């Protein structure tokens, strides 16, 4: 099974002339990887719908419905929902689509009613709980958004995506300490993710102070351990900034115990070395004879 990025690349390369089997597989992989590409779905749904059979047809309808909502075509989405309701009259999955359609029209109260109803039947329906959070986010009601996320996370503490969302909400409110807590949970859930370590490091860096700068540097180091420097410029620059700020923050070292002073000095030694190392790595990556600028920039934005 080819990866989704390869499939999308070949689709783009074929430029409108892909075969029906290729399209079928592309849409199927989009469903599986939960990638939202309403443009791809909208351009090709008719051909794939004619070719699809069996129970996959209904998954396809759901995918088309969501693509329609993404494109703002609420009437078309309505048609899809009617078809799905005829086939699955009591389904919570279709109910969620109904709620999403209400959200798209801006009818947030109606959407909330739909979701509350669905939750009455099954209070542990994770998808519907997430939609409730989305409604409050769309309404701009951060207080209720936080409440809903907290309720969701109390029941499902292993939901990494929700922890990330809560972290971002706190950051938007400038509550960096709470945001750090959320990203720490995300790291606990996914300790080998370079992106999570980098995100946590950035929050520590924002909090400031010598200890936090050192924490940031260490998490950037863990991020680099998981994703090598040439693909992880974010963490490399992070190390540079963190070591800089840590060195400049040594002024607040006045009243520390002997042990603390020793460990601080050790940290400063590591600091110096890390900075040197980061500069060397950057210099090597920016070397025009071994790496073209275009390649470097494209790596940085990937």
């Amino acid at each position, binding site marked *: 099974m080819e990866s989704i990025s390869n499939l999308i690349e070949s689709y783009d390369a074929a430029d409108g002339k892909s075969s029906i089997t290729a399209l079928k597989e592309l849409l199927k992989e989009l469903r599986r990887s939960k990638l939202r590409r309403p443009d791809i779905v909208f351009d090709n749904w008719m051909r794939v719908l004619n070719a699809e059979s069996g129970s996959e047809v209904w998954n396809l309808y759901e995918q088309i419905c969501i693509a329609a909502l993404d494109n703002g075509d609420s009437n078309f989405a309505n048609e899809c929902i009617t078809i799905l309701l005829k086939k699955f009259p009591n389904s919570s999955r279709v109910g969620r689509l109904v709620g999403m359609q209400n959200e798209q029209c801006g009818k947030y109260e109606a959407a909330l009613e739909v979701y509350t109803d669905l939750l009455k039947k099954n209070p542990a329906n994770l998808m519907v709980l997430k939609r409730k959070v989305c409604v409050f986010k769309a309404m701009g009601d951060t207080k209720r958004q936080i409440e809903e996320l907290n309720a969701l996370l109390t*029941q499902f503490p292993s939901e990494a995506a929700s922890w990330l969302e809560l972290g971002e909400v706190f950051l938007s409110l400038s509550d960096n300490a709470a945001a750090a807590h959320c990203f720490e949970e995300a790291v606990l859930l996914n300790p080998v993710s370079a992106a999570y370590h980098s995100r946590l490091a950035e929050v520590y860096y924002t909090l400031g102070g010598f200890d936090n700068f050192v924490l940031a540097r260490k998490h950037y180091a863990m991020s680099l351990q998981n994703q090598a420097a040439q693909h992880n410029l974010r963490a490399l620059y992070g190390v540079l900034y963190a070591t800089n700020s840590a060195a400049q923050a040594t002024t607040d070292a006045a009243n520390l115990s002997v042990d603390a002073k020793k460990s601080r000095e050790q940290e400063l030694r590591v600091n110096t070395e890390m900075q040197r190392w980061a500069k060397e790595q950057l210099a090597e990556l920016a070397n025009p004879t071994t790496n073209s600028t275009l390649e470097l920039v494209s790596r940085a934005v990937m």
Partner: protein
Amino acid sequence: AMAREHLLLDPAIRDWVVIPMVIMLVLVALGRNYVNQLIKSTPVITEESLGELRHKQVLQQSQRLRMNGRFLNDAAFNMRKSYMIRKKTGILREKVPGAANPMSNPMNMVDMMKGNIVYMLPNFAMMAFVGYFFSGFVCLKIPFPLPSNHFKLMMQRGVDLTSLDVSYVSSLSWYFLVTFGMNGIMRLIMGGDGEFDDAKMMQMQMGMGMGGAQQMGFNAEAAYKNEKEALGIAKHQWVADSAEKQLLGARYPEESSGEAIDLSNFSTSS
């Protein structure tokens, strides 16, 4: 004399006994799977089951903290550890229900009975069928030698030859072999869907029959207690230092005895 030479078995045995038995057992297992799906009652979401879900999640959280805590700094780890087990208000010190008595939940019992009947009935029927129709002859030869002759009574039921090698077994043995191997075959055919582990079910059956003990539901109280103790003794070793050591390699500075850091050489330009 003890026959060390190979017995030549009639190929008709292979055509009419060995292969049909496999086909029959596979078909019955498939059919059983579908019947199970049909008669399975949808799980009812109760307050009780929600609470149970929450307890399981808390336990998972604590386990995760123990397993992955080394990726967080000391303060973060200790804060979470304290949140779980501090005196009086730690999450793991909450009062939670012990083992749920399965007898008290009628739906569970009915479900179990349904499962048992669907499982036992065809097994008995097939065992009787094989024992009656396919007895009195040697079915196949096991490729490895069995240690003692005592197995003869079990494996060669109906064939009363004292001099026959233990490796030659009757059809009933073949039946049991295939039944126990059915889980693997099912997983191949159904593609990982087979939650129906025949061998396990049989063990459960025998356990129930012998001890008459009821099956324990999820015992939150005991699990919480175990987790609390495990977390209490968990040591925390932050791996960030080893990450930096790995990146810097030989350049990682050693702990030296208090020489002053010369910050004048530290360049703050990027």
